[in-house]
Each structure stands twice: as C-alpha cells, then as structure tokens.
C-alpha cells in the first residue's frame, strides 16, 4: 500500500528545491564547458594535419566509449595521485563538460558538414581568411541544424547530474539520498526528484524547439 505522507513532503520540499538550484547550476556550467569545448574539438578535427585530426578523433571516441560515472571517479579519486586535486564541484563540472563536449563535437561536425561546399568557395572567392570563413560564414549556418542535437544534450546533461552525487556534489539526488538516510523514507524524496526533473526537462525541450525556429528566422534561413 502506498503510504504517502503529505506533511513530510512539505517539510522536505524546500531542501530539495534548494538542491535543485545546484543541479541547474551543475548542468548549466557543465553545458557551458561542453558547448565551447565541443566546438573546439569539432574545429580541431578539420585541421590540415591528418595525424592531429586522427588523434583528436581518437580522444573523442575514447571519451564517448567509456561511462561518465567512471570518468567522474577517475577525475575525483585517481587524478589526486598525479598531483591534481580538485573539489567535487570542479571535478564534476570538468568531467561532465568534457564528456558532453565529445558528443557535442559530433553534433557540430554534422552541422558544419551540412554547410554546402559553395559557401566555402564563395568565401574563398572573396578572399576571406579561414578563421573569418568559419566564424562569419560557416558556423552561423552550421548552428541552426545543430540546435536540435544541442538541445537533446542539454536535457541529457541535466539528467546525468545525479551521477555527481557519487563524489558528493550537493545536487538534487544527493539531497534526496541524504533525506532517505536520515529519515528512512524514500518514497517522497525520490518521487519529488522525478517530478522536479520532469518539470524542468519538458519545458526546456519545448523552449529549445522554439529557439531553433526563432534562430532560423533571425538568420533568414526560412
């Protein structure tokens, strides 16, 4: 029989909501790292040196092929043996940011590949430098087709933040675990965590779709 205690629910809600701020912060910061680093990784794969390009590809494949939770453990517990000691927050942000950067670089790569060859040739015929060609011509056109994929990974990174609870980042899952350990009640905290995740993920996905449409119109692509 379901034994839902409303009074208990109201008591723990403020604590969970304040942990939600940390979850959003973790997802946001991790995503910011991923968005920038992912673009760097995508661009590094397009250099003239085939060896360099291949090495970057291998690194991306390695990151994509190992579990995030393992990478988090490595950065937090193993890195100190090499003299790199990071706080749970920094270790968490870094691992999640790098992990998602590997995925986002593939999204960008697809977006960049979707820009027609003629655009590059027109840029060359105007004598634009490679850097300007990327930042003024190619990336603005690569972005709209990348937005759907980028949005998926924003929701993905948000849903993966509970992994950070394993190294003690005080996010939502960590708070729910603590409440359970203190009170031996698990139904309410975990249910609330699910509802909070849902309440943030669903509108975010809708917002991303709206943003994608806005961006296309803004860039005159539709």
């Amino acid at each position, binding site marked *: 029989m379901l034994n839902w205690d409303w009074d208990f629910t109201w008591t723990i809600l403020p604590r969970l909501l304040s942990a939600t701020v940390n979850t959003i912060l973790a997802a946001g910061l991790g995503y910011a790292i991923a968005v920038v680093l992912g673009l760097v990784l995508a661009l590094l794969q397009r250099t003239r040196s085939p060896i360099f390009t291949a090495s970057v590809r291998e690194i991306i494949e390695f990151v994509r092929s190992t579990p995030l939770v393992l990478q988090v453990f490595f950065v937090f517990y193993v890195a100190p043996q090499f003299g790199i000691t990071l706080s749970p927050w920094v270790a968490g942000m870094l691992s999640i940011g790098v992990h998602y950067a590997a995925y986002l670089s593939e999204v960008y790569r697809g977006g960049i590949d979707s820009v027609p060859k003629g655009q590059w*040739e027109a840029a060359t015929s105007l004598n634009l430098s490679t850097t300007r060609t990327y930042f*003024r011509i190619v990336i603005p056109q690569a972005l709209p087709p990348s937005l759907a994929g980028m949005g998926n990974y924003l929701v993905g990174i948000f849903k993966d933040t509970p992994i950070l609870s394993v190294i003690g980042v005080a996010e939502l899952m960590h708070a729910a675990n603590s409440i359970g350990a203190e009170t031996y009640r698990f139904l309410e905290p975990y249910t609330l965590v699910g509802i909070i995740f849902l309440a943030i993920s669903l509108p975010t996905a809708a917002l991303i779709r709206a943003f994608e449409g806005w961006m296309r119109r803004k*860039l005159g692509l539709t």
Partner: protein
Amino acid sequence: MTDETHASFPLRLEGANVPMVSFRKVTKRYGSLVVLDSLDLDVAEGEMVTIIGPSGSGKTTVLRTLMTLDSINDGVIYVDGEPLTHMSDGTKLVPANQRHLRKMRSKIGMCFQHFHLFPHMTALENCMEGPVNVLGLSKKEARERSEELLRMVGMADKRDQHPSRLSGGQQQRVAIARALAMRPKVMLFDEVTSALDPEVIGEVTGVIKKLVSEHNLTMLMVTHQMGFARQISDRVSFFYKGRIEEQGTPDELFGDPKKERTQQFLSAVREAV
C-alpha cells in the same frame, strides 16, 4: 613537378603588353582524368573572353584554377604579370603558400552558377562582408560602396532582403555586386545564367553587358548562351578535351568555324535551341 620544369617559367612576366591572365602549359588532373591538358591561354587587360565547349572540356576548371578553388598539377598561371599558382623564392618558382594565394586572390572575383550568396546575411551585408573583413574598409565606406553597386545591378530596393526572399536572377545580380565590391581586376563568370528561369536571364546578362561597356574589367566567362557570348565577347575560345580547339572573334568562331569539332558543337547547340 620538378625544379627543372619550374626553371623554364619566368619569375614574372615583364615588358609591354603583359597579359592580365596567362595560363602557361597548365595541366589539371582529377585522378587519371586530364581536365586541362597543357593549356596555354592569354587574356589581355580589359578583354572579355568567353569559353564555350562540351561538358567535361575543362571550361569551368579554367575559372576554378584561376580563382584558386582547384590547384593545378603542372604549368604556371600568371595574373597581372605575377605568378598566381607559384611564387618566387628568389631564383625559381615554387608552389604558392597560403599567404601568396591570399595576396593574389584579391585581384580576382568570381560569380557562380548557383550564386552562393551567404543565406544568413541580407543583400547589403553580403556585399559588405569582403570589403569590411578583408579590405579593412570602415562599415560606412563599405556600405556606400555596396549600395552604389546594388544600385548599379538594380537591386538597391532589395538591399535589406535575405537571399531566400530573392529570385534567382536577383540573387545572381547581388552576387555580381558582391564580387565587384572587392574591386577585382579580373572577373570570372561561371555559367551564371544556367540555373535561372529563361525569363530572368536577361536581367543578369544586362548587368554583364553594362560591365563590359562601362568598366575596364578583364573578364572570363563560361556560358551556354551562344547569342549572348556572340554579342559581348572580344574573343570566344572553343574548348575540347582540356585544350583550346579553336578561338577567334565571335564573328569568326560563330560565323565561320574552321575546325570540324567546332562546327559539330555549334550545330548541336543550335539544334537544341
């Protein structure tokens, strides 16, 4: 290419009547396919040369190698007396580096069959992009120059439209203005009317005619519009298998072609119309 073959090419073309564009024994291969076969072609300053020929004869490749979109396998291309595909290391020609290509490219402008306007920029922004970001003009100067050119091609009233809102003919006219905004010495037109609906071809050919009559630009054009080529060219080159099979004034080439292949091509084209 070996150094010996380089040595037979001058470091720069000097003297009177240096051609604006000079292909010297230029060969371009795609794998085993020879697209340009030891091509020699000179274009004088201010001359309008039209290249015609069957598909695969290397017409477009001439323009693409000149724009440095494609590299060449052999020979040297000179523009304005200086080597384009190569540069001097003091005593001999060596393949050009990026820096040299960028310097030389500024002399050349190109319009494409499918326009290739930047879709995220308005007509005006398309024209201003190069002048601001390559030539280093102020926004104000670039805007004035671009607006004047858009007026010249009859697109002043559409300057704030994105390409997706423009017809093919309008897009091509903006593309011509965009190329001219860089003040090139040589303009290349690669089948600029081939992707257009018949009723708008005239608005693009009209702009090119105006350029020929009012500006002292050197122009190379690849086209299938034989009537247009006959009207505006100083010289017409018939290409066949990567070489010039026959060339002459429009009246000579269209009115009295000497070579059998030229005659065959021209009669085939006339039948198709």
